[in-house]
């Protein structure tokens, strides 16, 4: 994995997407067969299961922060660069999910918690604006894309913060995290690639990660080996 500081995620994606040849449909099929052969029982796997971290059962400030950053990614994906990021993120969340738990949680924050969230979000949104870069319309950017793949005993669910490209021209997935870039994120990026490969039958060209906490970003080319590792990292699968 390459850690980088100066070029934006978009710059690096441009380079990566025009590089290596994608994984062949036969190789994608082999990955599917590998997952298909995994033993039961039936279970559903979520991205949080890959992190291996037991999250809070209800809404939390961290979840709210993540959801608000997702809304900013959404706005940037269609070329809307907000000048009042915090206000816009809240407005966007309320317009998208006005009745949701997180909006309710936001409405009940104390003044102190609100101020803290405001400061936190300002910092993250600044990094996002600086480090994500301009996404060309021609890349067909889609934000907060849900996906699922049901293979054998498993149902793998996922949400991609940003998807660019098409299945015919090559896909790239971007994970925007408010945490630091670490091994956990690397694992999750492999999971994103695996779910997309199983869902569409075509492996993405690469997966990128951007930490709005540190400004670090990483790009991760999808290979047959990385997909094999992703299968072995599924919960309940013993590494071979």
């Amino acid at each position: 994995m390459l850690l980088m500081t100066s070029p934006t995620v978009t710059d690096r994606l441009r380079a990566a997407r025009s590089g290596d040849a994608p994984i062949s449909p036969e190789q994608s099929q082999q990955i599917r067969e590998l997952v298909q052969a995994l033993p039961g029982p039936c279970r559903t796997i979520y991205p949080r299961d890959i992190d291996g971290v037991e999250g809070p059962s209800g809404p939390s400030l961290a979840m709210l922060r993540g959801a608000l950053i997702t809304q900013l990614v959404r706005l940037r994906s269609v070329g809307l660069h907000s000048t009042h990021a915090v206000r816009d993120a809240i407005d966007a969340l309320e317009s998208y999910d006005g009745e949701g738990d997180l909006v309710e949680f936001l409405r009940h924050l104390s003044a102190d918690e609100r101020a803290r969230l405001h400061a936190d979000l300002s910092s993250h949104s600044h990094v996002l604006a600086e480090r994500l870069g301009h996404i060309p319309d021609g890349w067909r950017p889609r934000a907060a894309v849900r996906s699922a793949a049901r293979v054998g005993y498993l149902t793998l669910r996922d949400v991609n913060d940003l998807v660019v490209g098409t299945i015919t021209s090559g896909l790239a997935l971007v994970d925007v995290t408010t945490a630091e870039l670490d091994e956990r994120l690397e694992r999750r990026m492999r999971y994103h690639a695996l779910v997309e490969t199983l869902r569409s039958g075509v492996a993405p060209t690469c997966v990128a990660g951007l930490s709005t906490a540190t400004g670090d970003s990483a790009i991760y080319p999808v290979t047959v080996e990385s997909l094999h590792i992703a299968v072995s990292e599924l919960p309940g699968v013993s590494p071979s």
Partner: protein
Amino acid sequence: MNLISYRLDTADLMSATSEPTHEGVVIDDARFATIIESHRRHGITPRRVDAWTIEQAGAPPTPFVWSVRKTRRTLGNAAASLVISGQQRTVAAAVRAEMGHHLDLAVRGWANRGTLSWWIAEQSPVAQGIITAEAVAWASDICDIAERSLARFTAPSDLYIDLPTCRTSWRARRDLLNDDGSVMVRVRGGAPSTTAGAGLRADLAMATVAARGEVGPARIVGIWPQAGMALALNSDEITVAVGIRDLTAASKVLAGIPSAPSPRERQLA
């Protein structure tokens, strides 16, 4: 019901959306008159029936209110149509053009209260951005399907069928249609439910009735991009007949007429 399940890889998608070897069903005037008669028998109350009504077993619809999620299909399909027909180069530009068109209608005062144009104009610029993002995601899926299929597709409007004298209107949703009209495609969010097949059958039956006197679609394909799944249903006399029966039954339920007791219920009584 003979539903054929496909995955969303390119080979499967091509196979699901390829031109069928069989023909669709023809509904003649006499059969159409029978459909009207069977609806009239179940009252002459205003009813709107679509595939969703069938999937919900005739549950009465809740009052319609626009939301970001509800705009994505209308805007997304219109934008996909612009891209597929070559009028716009990118999906985002096409969605922006559609948004501009709706805002223009509202500014000129041509949008009535409750219409999409009116609702969009009422939203903040940020909410309009989120609406655009949702529509871009939807339109991208439609364009992706059209590009990966062998047949040439267009993104047509939905079909509306009014049954004369019984105040019943049907709406058959369709997101893509191939050149000769033999394959219609519906794109859905989430994953297929257990009643998804009945919904596809209803859309197929309505499209066949809409083509009255001519051959209806030979196949309907339901595509769930998020789940990477597609279900195809071929048209034949029985499938269309059962679809029409479901639509009639839904009309009956919407008119508040209780369904006939089952043999078990009769036995218990």
